[in-house]
């Protein structure tokens, strides 16, 4: 089951906090939506540090869909 997390428009560090929470819930893959390059980079760094892999897909409105998988 894909878990979707919408972190678009949220202030730092919320996207990372929500991503971390989703990772600890262990339901993969996680689709995390972010709006800025900063959130994208921060979530990716956190996910990789947590032992996951991340793929980035640019979506409409210059937003990003990050797909987090357990490595």
């Amino acid at each position, binding site marked *: 089951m894909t878990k979707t997390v919408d972190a678009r428009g949220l202030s730092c560090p919320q996207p990372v906090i929500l991503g971390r929470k989703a990772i600890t819930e262990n339901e993969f893959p996680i689709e995390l939506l972010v709006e800025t390059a900063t959130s994208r980079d921060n979530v990716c760094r956190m996910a990789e540090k947590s032992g996951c892999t991340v793929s*980035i897909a640019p979506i409409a409105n210059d937003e990003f869909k990050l797909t987090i998988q357990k490595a």
Partner: protein
Amino acid sequence: MTEYKKHFTATRAGIITAGAIIGILAPLLQYLGNPPNMGICVACFERDIAGALGLHRAAVVQYIRPEIIGFVLGSLAAALIFREFKARSGSSPLLRFILGNFAMIGALAFLGCPWRALLRLAGGDLNAITGLIGLAAGIAIGVQFLKSGYSLGRSYRSREAVGWAMPALMIGLLALAIFNPQFSDGGAIFSSEAGPGAMRAPLLISLAAGLLIGFLAQRTRFCTMGSLRDVILMGDTHLISGIGALVVTAFLSNLILGQINFGITAQPVAHSSHLWNFLGMLLAGLAFALAGGCPGRQLILSGEGDGDAAIFVLGMISGAAFAHNFALAGKPDSLADGVLTVGGISPAGMAAVIIGILACLAIGFSMREKFE
């Protein structure tokens, strides 16, 4: 699907490089005329701008600091070049304005923002240790709120004008700085003739340094508050490695430039009232954590189109006006004929810091959302 490829500025080496460059530029600016034991201070400099515009009338701290303008426009340039400029706003702007006011009141109680605290440390001013402990305490409180679901709500993509407003204001401010018009007798634009406001590096050098720092800070997401917050929240040391680089290179630069002065009492533009150094920075740290960025970061965000960060910056400028008009700001230690008078804040200043902490706690508690 694209695989994640790190650009240099997103790496640890990148942020360390940025921190190191800032750690060289700030002492250099001090060497070239900026106030001693300071170099760069986002809070003090925004306060100086408030003074230049006449929002307060403390004659010794009035000057349109080009560094602040440079931070915003340097960030704008980086955001435009690397296509990260995004006009956005709508995340509880009034609360951010209030947080900005209290962040500045807290910072001025200590006589410095986190950037200055780090630079003071790198110059031997041991009061910075008290301030940084207070900052960490305030951020730790903020982290508790963040972990309980605190959020100011999401921002939304806005029309371009919302994102360009702050850069436009900064360009206007730059014009005022360059042409220094006199709008009325004894009126704006004010410019200190003595005191810290009169201590300034040449305008173009200040502006150039600000632009470079703004550019680097935007690319690396440099944030003094975030550096401590990420360690406390999740043991992440990415941001703090940039801060560490700043402190080390600033210390070495100060050593070379003869700007080291170890001590606690009578440090330039600083006071040794330990409790209020601690509490002032606790307030500032809590406010920055609740607003999502240190004052430098807020300037950077406002340069990349973030209207909510811009409101926070305007809140800080407003807070500076209140701080000086209501005599809330810190007074430095003074040494006259070998007699030390410890500075600090007035009873009104103490009340303002306490009220600020209570207000931030109220915002923290009331803005928690349930996690889904």
